[in-house]
């Protein structure tokens, strides 16, 4: 036996709502983050990720209240990202109750920030988040601002540098695949896991349980962050709009449409499937 493969629901949060988009934009409201979080915690989630998707709009991360609420009832690791720019931001987020923070833009703008954060809070607290878009020449390029701003950094080299600077984990998002359910970019994930010796979490494109199996079988990845496949399952029986703010695009939720290319699944079903295929999963 060894350490289990981690299944991590990722909640994109905009104000009071959990949202879901495609390629990290076009956000639909799906419900209240607390409801999703509690359900996932009680049904097999290994960790949770909360991403503030409008942090760059407001110039800061605004999730402190929901983090504090979560920390009182949910006792698995919580990672928070979105708009985290200073050591003080990190301290505030941790004090609110988070266990780890994701940084992207701030690290790209000032790589030494990773070192300072790692020294102050411990390497295992600092996750370097890399958003990746394939270029015309086939190269994997790192982006910031939810995949909107190109950097001139090769994603693989940046991951290697991130480890050297003191990041404890790397979260790789394939922006090309994110929200589409077309499967994960296993080539991208392999290239990263081949080059670093810290845990790597894959994110972007899981649409079916078999995508997760393919991901894990093809490389030494430590975990996978999943949004669509779990959220669209939860709303099949939790589609009420009671008590939600009227802010945001609630059209999808009000209709009864489903998303093509996504085969909704629960965490438990996914883990049973992985386990029966030889992948060590915490059941």
């Amino acid at each position: 036996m060894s350490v289990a493969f981690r299944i991590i629901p990722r909640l994109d949060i905009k104000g009071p709502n959990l949202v879901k988009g495609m390629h990290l934009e076009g956000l639909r409201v799906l419900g209240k983050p607390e409801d999703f979080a509690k359900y996932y915690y009680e049904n097999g989630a290994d960790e949770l990720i909360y991403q503030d998707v409008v942090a760059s709009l407001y110039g800061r991360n605004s999730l402190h209240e929901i983090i504090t609420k979560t920390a009182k009832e949910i006792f698995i690791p919580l990672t928070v990202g979105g708009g985290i720019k200073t050591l003080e931001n990190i301290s505030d987020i941790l004090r609110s109750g988070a266990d780890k923070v994701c940084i992207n833009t701030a690290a790209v703008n000032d790589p030494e920030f990773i070192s300072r954060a790692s020294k102050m809070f411990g390497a295992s607290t600092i996750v370097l988040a890399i958003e990746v878009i394939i270029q015309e020449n086939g190269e994997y390029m790192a982006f910031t601002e939810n995949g909107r701003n190109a950097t001139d950094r090769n994603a693989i080299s940046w991951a290697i540098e991130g480890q050297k600077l003191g990041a404890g984990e790397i979260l790789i998002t394939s922006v090309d695949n994110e929200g589409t359910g077309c499967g994960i970019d296993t080539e991208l994930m392999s290239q990263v896991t081949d080059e670093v010796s810290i845990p790597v979490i894959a994110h972007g494109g899981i649409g079916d349980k078999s995508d997760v199996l393919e991901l894990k079988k093809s490389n030494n990845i430590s975990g996978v962050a999943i949004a669509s496949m779990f959220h669209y399952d939860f709303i099949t029986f939790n589609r009420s709009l009671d008590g939600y703010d009227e802010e945001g695009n609630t059209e999808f939720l009000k209709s009864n449409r489903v998303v093509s290319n996504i085969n909704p699944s629960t965490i438990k079903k996914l883990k049973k499937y992985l386990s029966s295929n030889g992948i060590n999963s915490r059941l």
Partner: protein
Amino acid sequence: MSNLFSIQNALESLGIRAIVTSDPKKILSSDGAILPGVGSFPEAVNQLHQLELFEIIKKFIATGKPFMGICLGMQLLFSKSEEFGVTEGLDLIDGSVISFANEAQIKIVPHVGWNNIQINKENKDNPNNPLQTIKDGEYFYFVHSFYVKPEPESMNVINTHTVYNGFKFCSSVIKENMFATQFHPEKSGKKGLIILKEFFTN
């Protein structure tokens, strides 16, 4: 990791009143104590000396009241650590703290995620052992780059083992009123909460 407030939240969700403090009077007058830890071993030892807690912790433990160490808090109970050069710990358990990086079979450091425990049969019936209702093979959350290695004469403190990439290491210890885990009970869901409850509501 090792957010002090996570531990406080976990205890309070169990109805156990908890304070976060470095005040010697408050520590000594408490019914139980937890030593967590974040950062490096030498840094933590430095801070404990600065706050004059090195002796206070030993004094508390001598009272026989329940004392739990978590993660770095467990490592600090040992004689010494090789993290960033050799540093002396509280020396309440004979043994050393050693890096995973020395083990060739371990490819990814730190050890992060849920892993299982195998309970040492000799300690299973110890009435102070909060793992009595926990099954062999149960998963708990780990995040660490160093592990503890008790001296041969102290092997009886080993409560559980865990295997990472084929490498077996000690994942919790029990000695008199001391209980300590390499994993984080406050981050290990319902099973972790059971351990906290069992140890502090005895």
